[in-house]
C-alpha cells in the first residue's frame, strides 16, 4: 500500500503542477496580473541576493569552525605541556 500511496502522491503532484500552469495560462493578458508577475520576479531577485549573502555567511562559518578546531588542538598541546611540567 505504501507503493500505491507513493504513486498517488507522485501523480497528485503532477496534477497540482498542471493546475498551477493552467491558472497562470492567461495571466499574461491581464495587466493587473502582469504587474503581480513582475513583482514576483523582483521578489525572486531580492531573495536570490539574500541567498548569495547567506552562502557567503555559511562559508565564513565553515572557516571559523576550522579556526576554532585549530585553537582547540593547540590548547590541548599546551595542556599536555603543563601536565608534563607538573
Amino acid at each position: 500500500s505504501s507503493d500505491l500511496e507513493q504513486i498517488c502522491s507522485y501523480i497528485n503532484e503532477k496534477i497540482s503542477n498542471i493546475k498551477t500552469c493552467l491558472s497562470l495560462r492567461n495571466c499574461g493578458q491581464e495587466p493587473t496580473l502582469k504587474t503581480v508577475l513582475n513583482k514576483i520576479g523582483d521578489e525572486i531577485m531580492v531573495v536570490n541576493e539574500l541567498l548569495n549573502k547567506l552562502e557567503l555567511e555559511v562559508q565564513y562559518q565553515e572557516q571559523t569552525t576550522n579556526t576554532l578546531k585549530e585553537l582547540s588542538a593547540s590548547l590541548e598541546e599546551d595542556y599536555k605541556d603543563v601536565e608534563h611540567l607538573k
Partner: protein
Amino acid sequence: TLKDNVNILLDKASLESQESIGFIKATKVLMK
C-alpha cells in the same frame, strides 16, 4: 514567507559569526 526565513537564518548566522570572532580573540589572548 521564504524571504522572512532567509532573513532570519541570515541574522542568526551573522550573530553566530560575531560571537565566534569574540570567542576566538579571547582564546588567543589567554593563550599568549
